[in-house]
């Protein structure tokens, strides 16, 4: 019996050594030696023939042998598993240079990208977003903003009319009047939207987008206007951007200013974009004319405010170097796809 066991063990160790795969190890070793019909099972069956006084000794020997075999198989199994995983990994190699199928992801229109950038800056500064109708009445587009009928300031904006009283808004400023009628100070709002003027060339489109800004509160000054626009310019362009005010005229603000920003392309040294001046005109602004506050029922002796109007299309063209405004409205996919990775 003892010889028999050591013979089986030697055979088993040999088989373990020769097994080259997990399948072989299982079929040719595990099943053959330890299985239901395996050699060790046969040995166990032979235990009944062992004399009683030898049973304890032989029994221990059988168990030891079986344990040694199991251990050998297990060790080999771990080794072979590692080997097979390694072989599998080595066989599974993709050619990473083969072009992938293009994932079909679209994008926002550049005008929306810029609009979002601007709104994000102003909402961060405590401005609410308001909207108004595109077909406006003469009152909200002009009269409420201190531009009476047949006032020469109407020539500043070529207007599309539907009737004597109905028109396409020429600016987002009607939202100033609409907001002030409904809301008491403190007011801090921005109002984005489409506006219309009868112009059509490389730098003017009959439809474009503006963002109006309005702050009405106690003690609002020109310095606060400068502070807000400085903050906007730094966040929209870069932290080195400066703003410059030039006197101008809008009927609904007084004093009124044109606002230039230092050219972010050349850093103010002068380039093609800023036409060599180092400055780019980006918006009009001013202190809300007391007449406009009074028109809307806000006491101009108590409150003051400022307003500004940004051209989204112009800022888009400046920021992305788009030379012709008409590209923004052609909706050529080859154009739109260029903005896929822009936020």
């Amino acid at each position, binding site marked *: 019996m003892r010889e028999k066991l050591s013979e089986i063990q030697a055979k088993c160790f040999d088989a373990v050594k020769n097994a080259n795969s997990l399948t072989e190890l299982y079929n040719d070793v595990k099943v053959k030696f330890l299985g239901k019909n395996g050699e060790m099972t046969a040995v166990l069956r032979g235990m009944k023939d062992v004399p009683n006084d030898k049973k304890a000794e032989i029994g221990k020997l059988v168990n030891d042998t079986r344990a040694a075999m199991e251990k050998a198989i297990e060790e080999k199994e771990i080794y072979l598993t590692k080997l097979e995983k390694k072989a599998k990994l080595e066989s599974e190699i993709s050619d990473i240079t083969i072009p992938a199928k293009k994932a079909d992801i679209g994008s926002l229109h550049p005008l929306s990208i810029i609009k979002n950038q601007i709104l994000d800056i102003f909402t961060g500064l405590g401005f609410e977003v308001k909207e108004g109708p595109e077909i406006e009445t003469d009152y909200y587009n002009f009269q409420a903003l201190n531009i009476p009928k*047949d006032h020469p300031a109407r020539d500043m904006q070529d207007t599309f009319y539907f009737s004597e009283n109905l028109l396409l808004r020429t600016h987002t400023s009607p939202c100033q009047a609409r907001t002030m009628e409904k809301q008491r100070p403190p007011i801090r709002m921005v109002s984005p939207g489409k506006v219309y003027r009868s112009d059509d060339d490389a730098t003017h489109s009959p439809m474009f987008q503006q963002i109006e800004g309005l702050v009405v509160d106690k003690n609002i000054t*020109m310095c606060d206007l400068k502070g807000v626009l400085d903050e906007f310019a730094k966040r929209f362009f870069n932290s080195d951007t400066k703003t410059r005010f030039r006197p101008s005229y809008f009927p609904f603000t007084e004093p009124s200013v044109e606002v230039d920003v230092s050219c972010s392309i050349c850093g103010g040294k002068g380039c093609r974009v800023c036409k060599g001046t180092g400055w780019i005109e980006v918006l009009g602004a001013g202190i809300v004319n007391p007449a406009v506050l009074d028109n809307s029922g806000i006491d101009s002796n108590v409150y003051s405010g400022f307003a500004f109007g940004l051209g989204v299309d112009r800022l888009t063209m400046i920021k992305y170097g788009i030379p012709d405004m008409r590209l923004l409205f052609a909706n050529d996919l080859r154009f739109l796809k260029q903005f896929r990775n822009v936020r």
Partner: protein
Amino acid sequence: MKVPYSWLKEFVDIDVSAEVLAEKLVNIGFEVEEFIDLSKRIKNVVAGRISEIKKHENADKLRVCKVDIGKKTLQIVTAATNVKIGDFVPLALHGAVLYTGQEIKSGELRGVLSEGMFCGGDELGLTENDMDGAGDEGVLILHDVTPGQDINEIIGNNDTVLDISVTANRPDCQSIIGIAREVAAVLDKPFKMPDLSFNTTTKKSNIGVEVIAKDLCPRYMAHEVDNVVIKKSPKIIRDRLRAVGIRPINNIVDITNYVLIEIGQPMHAFDKTLIEDNKIIVRRAKNNEKIVTLDGKCNNLDDTMLVIADAKKPSAVAGIMGGEYSGINDNTKTIIFESAKFARDNIRRTSRTLNLHSDSSARFEKGIDFQTQEIGMKRALNLICSTKSGDICENSTDVHESFDAERTVKVKQDKISAILGIDINTDFILKTLNGLGLNTELINGTFVVKIPGFREDIVNANDVAEEIMRFYGYDHIRSTLLKDAAQTYGAKNEHYKISDRIKNVLIGLGFYETVTYSFTSEKAFDSLLLKKNNKLRTAAKLINPLGEDWSVMRTTLTHSLLKAVEYNQKMSTESGKLFEISKVFLPKSTPLIEQPREVEKLAFTVWDKEYDFYNLKSTVEAILEQFNVEYDYITSNAEFLHPGRSADIILANGLNIGSFGQIHPDVYENYELNVQTFIAELDFEALIANAVPFKGYKNLPKFPSVARDFALVVDDNLKIGELITCIKKFSEAVKDVTLFDIYKGENIPQGKKSVAIKVVIQSDEKTLTDKDIQDFTNKLLNTLKSNFNAALRT
């Protein structure tokens, strides 16, 4: 406003260059749009003296001249017949550029070298009115010049003109003296008024003025000049008028134009013999009254318009243009100068209604104060005197409403700082305002500012603050980030947030956002095959569109997107996905009498030969899912969609919120599309309004679900949606129903189809047993059998 530098210098002693002046003007709110160096227009043309003329050997009509230009003598071949030895002529040298833009090079004419060309008046931009002989055929003969002298110097073309943009609040600066006042203030120099003195005869004019429409004509001045000599104006007047783009005509017309530019007062001169009964009447026109104006146009007037008339007929449309027969002509002997103030809004309206525009009406529209009429009249009479153009009658007629020579605006000292946010030295404020002609004193902490007539724009403290600030300089404004303001909550509104979300979903699904014009053409409705009574044809129409293609406001986004698809297909882009969220304009009726409903729509389109109706349906459902709405489909009757491959979406409350499908074959032709195209247009606002809010977390199922597949044989014309809906509603235990195959052909009888469906069932109370499942299956199959005659495929 074109301002010749030399003219400006007459009223203020400018000691800086034009460039430096321009920068200073920008800083005080006057943008200099352009520097026009008049001498740049004509280049390399000099005076030459003809010293020899010979016949051309090879041409009878040509002559060969030797011309002395000071430093040297050139040979010129000419066809001109009016030149003789000793004449001084304008000679365009090699490389010259003429007024006409023509460039001159030396070359051979019939084998003889010509080193330039003689010029006629027209080639130098001159007419007979500008210079004697300039209107003649042939070469212009010059007088009192030296050989080699630049032609620009000779013809007064050597000024620099500043083209200054004047804002609408400063009509007073639509004049040389207005700009001069600003220049004087910014340079801290005195401003000199033009010479307004004149001598009169002792003769009294018998002309009478009656102003009936006082509301439209607050002031009317008339002054008679006798023994008028119609002649050419002095060179300085002609040169200056030409420099600002006005053609000299004769001394009288030139004086009216000169005063318009210099003083900013439009003047008119009537020939007195053409005024019946010596009476000028300022009245409203009668309805259908007619007048032929100087430009030859017959105008049909109405009673909102103002005319200058005599006892019988209108002789001018007030402030806009004189009548054809009232003007100054070569035989005019006696004139009446008019210097008036007309209501600017009335001039503006009349000018637009009649489509009649002039320098005078442009000036009146901007507004003229009460005092300028007198200054203008005096300056005109001064020029009559200085040019010896006639004898001025003793009396002036001046009909006007009462007016204040001066107003007072009081501004508390601290109000200036409250507006600007900075403190400005009181001395600077006083010096600035006084320098602008706004006489100001500080009395008990209040600035008392006297506003002269020409500054109608200054009415309140903000206006005064602006005057101070533009001279103090905006670079003094500091940045304070709303330091005294209340804290506010800032955010996008709900509409923007939803819109952003839906855009992001579409972008994830491969769509590109577009921005298209809100304008469209009524022809678009034909391209979309819309029926005559389709409500979408009721579109708001512009009175003054840019053209037919831009004449109405769109009622649908579909046309705009199909145009974008058409464009991209023409650019050979084989496939693509576009979307837009924009407003359409839906009037109740047209023409528009009230603001129409503005409804935001969501439209998306796909062109791709691999795409089909069900791909589009999947995108539609992905969007609808975002709003958590229940909906159903009905057959669409949208005219622009393929009738067999389109559907409308109906919300649970019955609201139709849009259509989608493949476009109609005729629409492909109308838009020149060659790749199959699909489109959906949904009422975005209705979707937002009907969105069902998230109701919160629901417990996860406690018991396992079971899936069973069924292959059902049904009639071929059965709508599969009905089958699926029936299964979904069959029991609470049904959690999901999905279609995974439709099969027709072998082993399936004619007129039938096999529909493979997966049904997921689950109980909320227990784990389903085999028997539960078998019972469920039997009952379901029985129901489907009786409802649809559906049999399990064997």
